[in-house]
């Protein structure tokens, strides 16, 4: 724990930049350690409103950890996370979450509709049964991701992409204003990718903010407005047009030049300029 001793400014409230209550997510001086080894260092980030934000970075850069630390799912060594200027506990009814698909057992005895209903649970509250209106809302959300005909299906009988869409529908059922999505595009089919992009656009249209851990660098400029480039530290953050540059990518992905060249080419092919 020696690592954190020489950072007195971390705890000094006076040094803290003013967080506007407008910003859906402000992360201040967050450090996270697994078994004494820090995976996120002194993260400083303020998410803009009404935007689609991609978090990119190499494997092990702490992208999922970042989301989990924001959501209080793992303990932070230091730092502060605020949502619209308040703590997570105060604001969590305004926050939705799509975990990684691999994080659950898909052989669980449950139907797609019942999974989506889970998004309604906090509105239903302790001990109360799921009412018809909540079930209808769940069906509506399944419809939004094009899965209404699979409502009664046991989730194990769905393809990976369909399972991902069920998770997305569950988050939609939460009716949040800020969403965190952990690799929603990982290993999905083209139909699902289109469906997710459609949902992202729709959420943005409704004035919501979505933070997405994203692996496919070539689609970043197409799908997102803002980017947070992460490799244990914040390498860069801001509008994709300004920040998603070759130089920053090199910094983010370290020595992996071959990969970077590949990505550069992919971006060039897509016809989207990278400064």
């Amino acid at each position: 724990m020696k690592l954190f001793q020489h950072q007195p400014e971390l705890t000094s409230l006076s040094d803290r930049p003013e967080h506007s209550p407008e910003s859906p997510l402000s992360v201040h001086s967050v450090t996270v350690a697994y078994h004494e080894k820090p995976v996120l260092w002194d993260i400083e980030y303020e998410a803009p409103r009404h935007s689609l934000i991609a978090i990119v970075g190499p494997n092990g850069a702490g992208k999922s950890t970042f989301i989990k630390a924001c959501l209080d799912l793992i303990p932070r060594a230091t730092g502060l996370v605020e949502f619209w200027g308040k703590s997570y506990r105060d604001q969590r009814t305004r926050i939705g979450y799509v975990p990684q698909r691999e994080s659950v057992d898909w052989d669980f005895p449950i139907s797609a509709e019942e999974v989506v209903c889970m998004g309604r649970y906090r509105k239903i509250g302790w001990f109360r049964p799921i009412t018809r209106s909540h079930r209808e809302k769940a069906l509506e959300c399944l419809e939004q991701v094009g899965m209404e005909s699979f409502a009664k299906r046991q989730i194990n009988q769905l393809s990976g992409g369909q399972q991902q869409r069920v998770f997305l529908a569950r988050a939609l059922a939460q009716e949040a204003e800020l969403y965190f999505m952990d690799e929603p595009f990982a290993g999905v089919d083209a139909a699902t990718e289109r469906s997710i992009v459609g949902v992202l656009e729709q959420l943005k249209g409704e004035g919501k903010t979505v933070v997405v851990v994203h692996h496919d660098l070539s689609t970043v400029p197409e799908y997102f407005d803002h980017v947070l480039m992460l490799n244990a530290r914040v390498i860069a953050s801001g509008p994709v047009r300004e920040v998603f540059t070759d130089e920053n990518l090199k910094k983010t992905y370290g020595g992996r030049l071959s990969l970077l060249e590949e990505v550069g080419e992919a971006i060039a092919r897509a016809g989207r300029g990278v400064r």
Partner: protein
Amino acid sequence: MSLTLSSPSSLVDLSFQVPTISAIFSVLTLHAGYNAAIVVVGTTLLGVAAGIIGVFALLRERALMADALAHSALPGLGIAFLVGTALGIDGKSLPLLLCGATLFGVLGTVVVQLLSRLRRLHEDAAIGVVLSSFFGLGIVVMSIIQNSGSGEEGGLSHFIYGQTAALQARDAFLTLGAAALTVIASTLLLKEFRLVCFDEEFARSDGWRVSRIDLMMMTLVVIVTVIGLQSVGILLIIALLVVPPAAARFWTERLPVMIGVSAAIGGVSGYVGASLSALFPRFPAGAVIVVVAGVFFFLSFAFAPARGVVALFVRRFLLRTRVTEDHLLRELYERLEQSNGDGDSLLRIGEGSRVVSLPELSTYRGSTPFARWLHRMLLQQKGYLTLTDRSTLLTERGYLAAARKVQNHRLWEEYLLTHADIPASHVDSSADLVEHTLSPEVVEKLKRKLRQRGTAVPESLHPLGSAFEREVP
């Protein structure tokens, strides 16, 4: 202890006394005396309660934790007895013993949690350590009690294997209370339990106090386990928590149904097990109950229609048979097509030109002798083939069926090519996967979509024969 219906046999006598029909009937209908009825009702209720809460323990992957809990209870029983005797209270008073059991059981699970959290020990290893060392401690305490020669310890060792016959009315009421509590809590908390069992992380992000929900779930597990110690015993109580839910899983994909089935299997196991042990006093009831539950498990594993292995094999076999049949008919058709020109002219040719030789077909060659025989019989059965003394004929009906299959296949291929951008080199195998499941409505839709070009069957899009050569190993 007046449960025994037949006179207790001596230790050397290994023969069983076969109970009379009327004895069986009176036990099963709870007319074999007050005590026997109490025992049967008590264990049935225990089975129901364990069956219900066991579903959640299983889905939450806490089933082994319940085993650690039960084993850790043994030193608690012994120490409670010693403390009670030292204080001058009756050491064998049940509330005292159950308090000791609960205390140590919970202590054991807490140690498991601490070990796996603090020192990065895997949970299964932590459970193994705690379960065995607590149980060992319990055995040591028991032997101390036995050697103290108070002569009072006799009842304690029954907790290891359980002694159903010792159940009294108040135990049955206790079990009734536990069962009622389990039913009510599981109904009220079904949504919360389902949530943490399925996706703990989401539950926490959604603002649920997962530790609180877990605590309620584990409290029910503790209650059922401790109450079950007396009748089923430390070693086997885990079976009542795990076996009925595991068996129930084979019957359904729905959680409420699974809970119901599990409760039923648990209840029937308790009922049948307790009845059997009333009829055969030689059998320890706990073991009989668990064996009955085990029989239910294997029956479910084998024969449950939803997920049982027999059903699985039957479904697989039927699909394979249908696919092979489709392939046979298609190959027959395509061979006739090749030798007779286009599809239209085929409609006009007579019976004689439909002589077919099954062994020539590559689909047929690739099958085992049994499968060949089976497919030929099936095709004959459906009236697609007739056998004359010298040759095999494709009947009118068989010909039309084959034409339909080929049409479906080519329609689907064409759809894939024109609408799904699948390259022609891959289209045949993709089509193979789907065409066997095409419904007539889908075929109609395909037809409309592709605007039939006037022929009954679209022409093949790939060289004929290639599809089959590939399938021969």
